[in-house]
């Protein structure tokens, strides 16, 4: 066979594996329909609380704060809710359990890298949750009247920005999850990661409203490229040049995290077999 045909065959195999994983993941998730609703309440409440708090701040400071008025904050936090929904990952809460219970062993026997199964599961969950999120989003838009008029190029650039943000966030979460190979106390790491995400990715407040030193910290860390960048892009706060630079930063961070994930994975596997033997 020609190399091209081999590659085609491999990709088709990968696709078939993903489709199979999607089907399993849908079946699993449908057992927990109630938890979808609960997840929705949680997501909506988190965004609405920050939205209302900052709208109130804007109103008590003469209508606007740092360039945001009430409608501007509504747009910011509703778009943040969507981006957060599309990019979030929970693998670090599962991996330690997987290692401890020995559930990783059967996954390692399969010819496919386990990360593909995790990505497929994540994407399926996103697709299912979107079914409940979209109606909620319509209601929230009606209640809070966000001011959002992106130019066509912004909307077009938003999609790849979210996709890259998802990849980056997933890789960082996955690398972090591998700490489960070394310690059963991953909770502490997860807590600190959660806190960093909350402040430095723009989930809690637009980064431009944070104090100077925190903004400087956010600029050199990867978190802002996981949420804030696509949000600022769709809100029309970035020039085309800044957008391109942002894509570059996302790709660079993805490369760093992919390399880290590969190195840590290999080191972790050696460690895992040592424990299991």
């Amino acid at each position, binding site marked *: 066979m020609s190399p091209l045909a081999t590659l085609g065959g491999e990709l088709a195999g990968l696709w078939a594996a993903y489709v199979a994983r999607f089907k399993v993941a849908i079946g699993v998730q449908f057992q927990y329909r*109630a*938890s979808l609703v*609960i997840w929705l*309440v*949680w997501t909506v*409440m*988190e965004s*609405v*609380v920050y939205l*209302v*708090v*900052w709208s*109130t*701040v804007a109103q*008590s*400071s003469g209508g606007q*704060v*740092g360039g945001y008025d009430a409608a501007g904050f509504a747009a910011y936090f509703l778009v943040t809710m969507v981006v957060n929904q599309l990019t979030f990952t929970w693998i670090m809460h599962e991996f330690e359990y997987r290692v401890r219970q020995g559930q990783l062993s059967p996954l390692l026997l399969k010819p496919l890298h386990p990360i593909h199964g995790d990505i497929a599961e994540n994407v399926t969950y996103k697709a299912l949750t979107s079914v409940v999120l979209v109606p909620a989003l319509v209601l929230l838009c009606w*209640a809070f009247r966000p001011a959002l008029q992106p130019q066509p190029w912004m909307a077009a650039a938003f999609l790849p920005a979210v996709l890259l943000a998802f990849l980056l966030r997933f890789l960082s979460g996955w690398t972090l999850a591998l700490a489960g190979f070394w310690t059963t*106390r991953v*909770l*502490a790491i997860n*807590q*600190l990661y*959660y*806190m960093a995400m*909350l*402040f430095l990715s723009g989930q*809690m*407040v637009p980064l431009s*409203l*944070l*104090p100077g030193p925190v903004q400087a910290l956010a600029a050199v860390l990867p978190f802002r490229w996981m949420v804030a960048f696509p949000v600022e892009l769709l809100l029309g706060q970035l020039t085309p040049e800044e957008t391109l630079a942002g894509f570059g930063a996302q790709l660079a961070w993805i490369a760093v995290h992919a390399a880290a994930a590969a190195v840590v994975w290999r080191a972790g596997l050696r460690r895992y077999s040592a424990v299991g033997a």
Partner: protein
Amino acid sequence: MSVPPQLRLFGVFLKVGILNELEYRVNFYVQLLQSAVGLVIGLAGLGVVFSHTDTLGGWSPNELLALLGIYFLVQGAVQLVIEPSMQRFMEDVRQGTLDFTLTKPEDSQLLVSVGQVQIWKLVNVLLGLAVLGVALSRLQTAVGPGEALAFGVALLAGGVIVYSFYFFLATTAFWFVRVENVLVIFQSMYQAGRWPVGIYPWWLRSALTFIVPVAFATTVPAEAIAGRLSPGTLLLALAVAAAMLAGSRWFWGVGVRRYSGASA
């Protein structure tokens, strides 16, 4: 002096909880870290907000600090005894082991409500008291005996309301066996209680007052400290507390009659 049997019973469960947990001291450090993260998020949130404004919906920074303290305090109390007891209760219904509780010669609602204690959550209670203490010492206007009394009554009413609500949700386990998730609804709505409910739009404010009664547990006691609590609101809180406690008790009776036990 005689101790009321309810308190004595709670004391026994508390002691068992402490003895059980002393085996797992690492959990204490995990809890310390979690509480510290919660504190940092809460304080930093207030800090960022008040770096852009002087008052939030009529509340001064120190008043909101008091609210944050009450938020931690109530959350800690819920996690200390109500949440673990309700989870244990629902597990008992599923496995049929509730029989052991029902056959004991004590009030079954009381046994179920205090049956399990997560002792390290005491950290959150203490943290809440500390934050509240700092806020009180920084408030410009001194809190008089009238306000202190109103605060105590409001906090008690708020606690009873939250307990009754939680207990009501847990009792539905008699009909729907898998309801642990329902308790998460309270937790997700509770995060709104970190801020005064007055800032929320009317539909959310109503939901936080009458559907998931977070407002009575956090905003109303904080209003008492700020000296803004109207007698009408305090009376309403007391009335809601009494009604919900009676309602939860009635509902428990209906549920227990429906429960068929493990052997049936």
